[in-house]
């Protein structure tokens, strides 16, 4: 395929600029997102003795629901709850108070707090994934970043297209390091393109859907969108209270009914995960029970029942749902890798880390292609870009590992760290990130890169160590006991630590042996090696 040179030039600069603008946020989103794939396992990992402690059952959920409804009149209108077991070891209820603020209650805290209990670490990592740690605006910013990312993918494909057939499997190691990085950047980008396009679209969808729907409402939907949205997203038909009191059916009965209904529709399994209850205690009370049926694309489905009698009102289950619910469930599942078995998650993790590498290597290529070949002193733009890449990208790897360590240490009775665990791990994360950025700003980039990569390797290797010391769940013990959730997090951390160490050594090699006159060249290392070889000669 031949492209006009003008088009090629335009798309090259679109790719460069969009990549630079969005690259940093995308690195954070992909690195944190790769970890978020394992958020179920992380839930178990961050709760000490989760494996040993008795899981709550439906009776506990019933008790929490009764107490919530008795204490909080607002919850009687609409209340949601996660069933205990599975992802959340304990039942938690949530509702909106008079000011529209979400409140969360557990059996330990019946009055309710303003945060979902028990998930400080996985929540922090998830938040980094979809907001880069910026409150409120971060979510919309990431939506715009997703769109720019889609544009970067298309423009990258267009400029690579003419040489695609020849270059795809060309990975040329050797003297020309920049060529090697370019090859690696291209091959990862092209081979994982379908997944990246899917992330660009679903990422924009998840963060911008509501804003865009509001804009599209007058343009394409004649202002009738808001009435159509409920039936398109919910399963239970909208109902208003009858004003007549009627005692509610038991959770055990409704739980069993939901499974029964799903079975009757031919689903081999349906594991209720959470429910939404409207008008509790009223004759018109409805409950929408959502759960997973593994083995389908878009495994989350829902059954809506009359909350008093258990009569079926509506269902949206895999295999028999309307286009809206099928699309929504598949888009969700595709984004989070929640289909298939554990290998899908491993694949998502690898592709996520590969994606992070794509943005890191993109920045390195920008720096290298503007290298001043004839002078040791490099331009301010190259220096700044190198510092920012090292500080932000490697810094966030250190920061997330620090949050993991802090999660364990904060819950170690021996240390007597009081206070809110969420605040503690946030401080650990954002302060270490800021310190890394500061370090990268003050040191020569090539030294900062090596030092921070070693910092990432050491902190990440300490993740299983902290877990073992605090909970006694050492990797070999969890492996022997078949607690794969706990083992996979620790083993993954060790593998990542080796990866960071390998990158640190590769960076040192580049500084010493690579082409001189670059921000990544280190004249001192070069001189030291020259002196050493003189001695041995």
């Amino acid at each position, binding site marked *: 395929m031949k492209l006009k040179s003008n088009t090629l030039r335009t798309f090259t600069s679109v790719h460069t*600029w969009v990549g630079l603008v969005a690259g940093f946020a995308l690195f954070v989103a992909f690195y944190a997102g790769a970890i978020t794939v394992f958020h179920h396992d992380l839930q178990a990992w961050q709760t000490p003795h989760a494996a040993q402690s008795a899981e709550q059952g439906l009776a506990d959920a019933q008790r929490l629901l009764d107490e919530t409804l008795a204490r909080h009149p607002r919850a009687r209108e609409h209340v949601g709850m996660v069933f205990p077991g599975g992802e959340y070891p304990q039942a938690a209820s949530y509702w909106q108070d008079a000011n529209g603020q979400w409140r969360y209650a557990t059996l330990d805290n019946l009055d309710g707090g303003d945060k979902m209990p028990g998930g400080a670490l996985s929540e922090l990592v998830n938040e980094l994934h979809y907001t880069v740690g910026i409150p409120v605006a971060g979510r919309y910013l990431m939506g715009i970043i997703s769109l720019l990312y889609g544009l970067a993918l298309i423009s990258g494909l267009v400029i690579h297209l003419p040489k695609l057939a020849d270059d795809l499997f060309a990975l040329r190691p050797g003297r020309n390091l920049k060529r090697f990085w370019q090859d690696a950047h291209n091959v990862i980008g092209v081979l994982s393109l379908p997944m990246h396009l899917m992330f660009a679209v679903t990422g924009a969808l998840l963060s911008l859907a509501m804003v865009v729907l509001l804009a599209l409402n007058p343009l394409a939907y004649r202002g009738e969108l808001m009435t159509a949205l409920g039936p398109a997203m919910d399963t239970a038909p909208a109902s208003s209270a009858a004003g007549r009191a009627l005692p509610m059916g038991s959770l055990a009965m409704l739980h069993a009914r939901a499974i029964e209904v799903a079975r009757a529709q031919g689903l081999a399994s349906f594991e209720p995960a959470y429910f939404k209850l409207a008008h509790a205690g009223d004759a018109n009370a409805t409950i929408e029970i959502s759960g997973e049926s593994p083995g389908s694309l878009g495994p989350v489905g829902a059954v809506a029942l009359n909350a008093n009698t258990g009569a079926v009102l509506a269902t949206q289950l895999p295999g028999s749902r309307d286009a809206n619910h099928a699309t929504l469930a598949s888009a969700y599942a595709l984004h989070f890798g929640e289909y298939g078995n554990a290998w899908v998650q491993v694949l998502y993790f690898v592709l996520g880390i590969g994606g992070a590498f794509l943005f890191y290597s993109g920045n390195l290529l920008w720096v290298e292609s503007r290298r001043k070949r004839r002078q040791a002193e490099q331009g301010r733009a190259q220096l700044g870009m190198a510092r920012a890449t090292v500080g932000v990208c490697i810094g966030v790897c250190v920061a997330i590992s620090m949050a993991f360590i802090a999660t364990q240490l904060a819950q170690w009775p021996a240390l007597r760290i009081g206070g809110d665990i969420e605040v503690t791990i946030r401080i650990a994360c954002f302060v270490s990130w800021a310190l890394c950025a500061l370090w990268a700003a003050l040191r020569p980039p090539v030294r900062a890169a090596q030092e921070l990569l070693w910092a990432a390797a050491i902190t990440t290797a300490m993740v299983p160590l902290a877990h073992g010391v605090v909970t006694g769940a050492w990797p070999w013990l969890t492996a022997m006991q078949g607690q794969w959730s706990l083992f996979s997090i620790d083993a993954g951390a060790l593998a990542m630590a080796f990866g960071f160490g390998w990158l640190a050594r590769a960076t040192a090699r580049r500084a010493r042996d690579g082409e001189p006159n670059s921000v990544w060249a280190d004249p001192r290392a070069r001189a030291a090696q020259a002196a050493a070889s003189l001695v041995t000669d």
Partner: protein
Amino acid sequence: MWGRATAAAIPGFLLSAGVTGLACWLLPGPWQSTLVAGIVAFFAVWIAVMALAFQCRNGKRAWAWLGGGAAVSLATLWLLQTLQWVR
């Protein structure tokens, strides 16, 4: 570059709205049943339209093409809806 970038963002958004809206309303069945698919498709369409904006030779042409396309697609959609030829 700025001309084409703003064209991608502003008339590009409107053109994508028109194209997606036409597809959703022209498909058989009520428009409500394509609501979620429509919003997913909208983001894919908008990304493609943004790439098209950079295919144009300069910002003025990008604004003209995308703006014209947006006007035509949205006007057609509005006409079809008003005449109740689509639902």
